[in-house]
């Protein structure tokens, strides 16, 4: 088929499309879903296990704030990365968020190492949190992947990696809120390791999840 025929065909089958909302608005929508998750899951856990929960020290709040900011910025960056012509430096804000988060964890790790020495590395195993973060990542990441699939798969690996990071950061908050940890190094190693591995896995699968779709499968209406 020559190009003129293709143009005729594409225009003949033209349907009305509503432009996607800007990434900021779509991020807020995803965040609303994430907030529901963050309220509902701990509420169920607290109801079944009254002893669950943590003491909200300023450092703990700072760590959770940094995780939330990372999730928010990563979600926005993922949603912006599927808009052609959007800034190519969308990954910078999430990188700043991750740095803040790791710095806040490291500042608490130093006293732990002084107190426990190398025992801090091995004294706690955290498989329940690994499972919780992975499950939460699926619940929170699936809608985000569906949202980015409505855009252009320009950088599928980066987009999927950022979406994974966003979902896992928020899932990590739920794990931190409902399971107390005696040593912050456990959070850095087990939570951080889980997030890094699963987000990298998402990035590797990006090309499978995000492809240029055949034109008739694109949404015809609905702006989100």
């Amino acid at each position, binding site marked *: *088929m*020559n*190009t*003129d025929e*293709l*143009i*005729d*065909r*594409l*225009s*003949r*089958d*033209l*349907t*009305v*499309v*509503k*432009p*996607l909302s*800007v990434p900021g608005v779509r991020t807020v929508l995803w965040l609303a879903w994430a907030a529901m998750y963050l309220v509902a899951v701990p509420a169920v856990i607290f109801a079944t296990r009254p002893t669950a929960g943590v003491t909200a020290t300023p450092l703990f709040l700072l760590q959770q704030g940094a995780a939330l900011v990372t999730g928010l910025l990563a979600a926005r960056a993922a949603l912006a990365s*599927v*808009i*052609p*012509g*959007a800034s190519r430096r969308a990954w910078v804000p999430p990188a700043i968020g991750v740095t803040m988060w790791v710095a806040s964890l490291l500042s608490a790790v130093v006293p732990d190492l002084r107190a426990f020495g190398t025992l801090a590395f091995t004294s706690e195993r955290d498989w329940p949190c690994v499972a919780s973060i992975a499950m939460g990542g699926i619940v929170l990441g699936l809608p985000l992947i569906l949202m980015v699939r*409505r*855009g*252009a798969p*320009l*950088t599928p690996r980066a987009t999927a990696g950022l979406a994974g990071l966003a979902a896992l950061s928020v899932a990590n908050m739920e794990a931190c809120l409902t399971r107390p940890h005696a040593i912050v190094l456990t959070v850095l190693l087990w939570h951080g390791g889980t997030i890094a591995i699963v987000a990298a896995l998402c990035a590797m699968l990006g090309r499978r999840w995000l492809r*240029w*779709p*055949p*034109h*008739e499968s*694109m*949404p015809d209406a609905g702006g989100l």
Partner: protein
Amino acid sequence: MDDAPATDEHLSRLMARAQQGDNEAYVTLLRTLAPWIRRTVRGRRGFLGDQDVEDVVQDALLSIHTVRATYDPARPLMPWLSAIVRHRLADAGRRHVRHTAHEVHVDDLDVTFQSATANGCEETSGDPEALARAIQALPRRQREAVELLKLRELSLKEASAATGTTVGALKVATHRAMMSLHRMLRGIAEG
């Protein structure tokens, strides 16, 4: 990228109208963009042949079509368009490298086997002109299916997107086309 095909404002208006379902505006837009995309592809991928260039142009047009909902009419069109073309060019470059990496150049030797009987010329690769004529003689749907799937080597999904028919219908058309071609070419060979 290279010089824009027309004023951005004009193109933005056309795209905004296309998003509302205006076919005429869409045809005008795509016909304006196609030569610019072609020039850009030729400028950046000088090593591609004419057919490969046209494939990239069509890829870019299909991509523009599928993600037209991502264009925000409040913003200029050219950065949006350039990003799509740039990425499709990169994809085409990767495809080209993949294909050429698997190509093996073999010297055109007169004798290929020691045994003389194995070097007979009875088996020919066929008459390309007869094949071209036979393809042209096929019904329209079958001809399109052969052109897209066998000659341009599009995937079933891509061919389905380009023709607006289902994958199943394409498979049936291809099967019938291959049977017809086989019959026609055998008829020619037998005189």
